[in-house]
């Protein structure tokens, strides 16, 4: 939980970007298809998800965040999303995420872990009365990825919305 967000000095990246892109696409698809448990399983046990509430926010500990979930809180959030009485999701939101502009920012010498930057757009629709909720989220992802056999695990994922410091209608889904 207390792992630094930016790790030790990195070497210049030599990693192949294609498996990274494939991984990010697969991750986004799991969220789009509401396969939250499978998505959660992408994280390492000490992994976490962070959506800051302010540009320039240096850590999730000294001030509020939109979301800051370790695996325990992820499990709580997902359990709630699966609950038959989660009224704020009756009807449930549908969403699609597009990930692009992928670049490998750092490749860490000792661990081989990658820090990856990408850009996302997400459209959410909730077909509720009296008016449907329709909204767009856009921002930057940063992933710390650990190589795992043919693929990756997520050490941390940081999703910074362009409007992260805005006032929001209730947020239901991971970006």
């Amino acid at each position: 939980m207390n792992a630094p967000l930016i790790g030790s000095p990195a070497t210049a990246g030599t990693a192949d970007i294609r498996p990274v892109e494939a991984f990010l696409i697969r991750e986004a698809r799991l969220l789009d298809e509401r396969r939250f448990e499978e998505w959660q399983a992408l994280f390492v046990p000490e992994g976490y998800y962070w959506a800051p509430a302010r540009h320039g926010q240096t850590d999730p500990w000294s001030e509020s965040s939109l979301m800051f979930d370790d695996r325990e809180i992820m499990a709580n959030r997902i359990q709630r999303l699966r609950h038959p009485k989660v009224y704020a999701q009756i009807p449930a939101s549908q969403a699609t995420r597009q990930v692009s502009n992928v670049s490998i920012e750092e490749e860490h010498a000792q661990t081989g872990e990658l820090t990856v930057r990408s850009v996302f757009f997400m459209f959410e629709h909730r077909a509720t009365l009296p008016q449907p909720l329709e909204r767009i989220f856009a921002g930057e992802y940063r992933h710390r990825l650990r190589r795992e056999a043919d693929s990756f695990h997520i050490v941390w994922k940081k999703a910074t919305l362009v409007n992260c410091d805005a006032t929001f209608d209730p947020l239901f889904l991971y970006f």
Partner: protein
Amino acid sequence: MNPFDLPPRTPDFEALVKPDRVHRSIYTDPALFDLEMERIFGRAWLYIGHLSQVPREGDFIAAWMGRQPVIMIRDGKGEVNVLHNRCPHRGAMLLTEERGNAGSVLRCPYHGWTFRNNGKLMLAPLRDGYAERYRMQEDENFSIQKVARVETYRGFVFASLAPREHPLPGLIEFLGQAGTWIDAIVDRAPDGEVDVSGGVHKYFVRGNWKAQIENLNDLYHPQFAHACTSDKQERQFKRRYGDESGAHLDVAETGSTWDAMKVAGIDWGLSWCDPLPFNHEARGGPLVEEHRAALAKRHSPERVGEIMSERFHNVIIYPSVVMQLASSHVRTIRPIAPDLTEIRVYPMRLKGAPEEINRQLVRYLNITHAAGSLIQTDDVEMFRRVQAGLASEGRDWVWLNRYVDADREGAGADGVRRAPGTSELVMRNQYRGWLRYMREGTP
């Protein structure tokens, strides 16, 4: 003088607020909302901010008094002023950032009028164009309008726009026993001060401001509206460090264990409620012990026990703010329109407490009270549904009759009205305050 010779806008409030119910139009009528902005948010002690948000000269935060924009700013003498966020010249908003540091002067970008950070006019450029008789530096009509009534309690700054003749008492008397609950929150800090500079959660309620404030001491709703937050043992997820699990949400056909807790209300619509059924006795662990140890450096063992005991859950300082002990935070309620309200939630960090405690306070508040939190989203959905449902004119009334016969309103020698937890006494008490404000202070 009424230039249009219209009849005065004074609705028959008694026809809208009955002892056990209120009329639906109270949540929907734009004219009533306008009157609330004038007579409630234009009179009451409203929470503006905390001193820790403006520690240095020139530091400011933006705030709202009803629909009116203000700033809270620390001047060169260290005084904290609440100023209308409007240039006295042509009316432009002076500061358009939510927080920042203005330095020693404020300058209007439109024509360059320049003010000290206490609002006083320093200069209006090209002074040859102003006749001598205006004496603009001396005449307060040319300075930024100050909010006249500003008082601070334990670092929390309140302001009121009430005219002198309004019967609103001073802040301390207004808070009454609610002030002791603010003490209980602040005393948790070993240094006796809280810090409210740890960021903010902001979310919209697509509903009326009163739907939010009627919910905050509503112990009838958790086991239903928050059903999705509990497991098969009816236990909520953990909401604080040091707990084994969260509150117990029992759903029984007849009585509720939540009735064992009490709710209480006082004049002007203020209220509070007993602690929620977390397993408080089982709370512990190294952080709780460190907290006790930090307090023990300043207080006797008996006093430490008192400070760490769970004496209440939250206190509503009607109509603008609620403060909570368990999930240490200040929450402000800003009405924007009859069907739109902005909520802001600020973590209260405890000065002098071990850093890890404050980190955990911030962390858990993300889970309980953020725009994407696991609890508030249930409530905000309900407020949205209330507003949507009240578009129906099929029924006129919203019922607040739960435990109405058990009300011992006014009975307590201490002026406190108490009732079982799931009573709607708190809402009835808020409407007693609402009526008083709408009648310009007549009880």
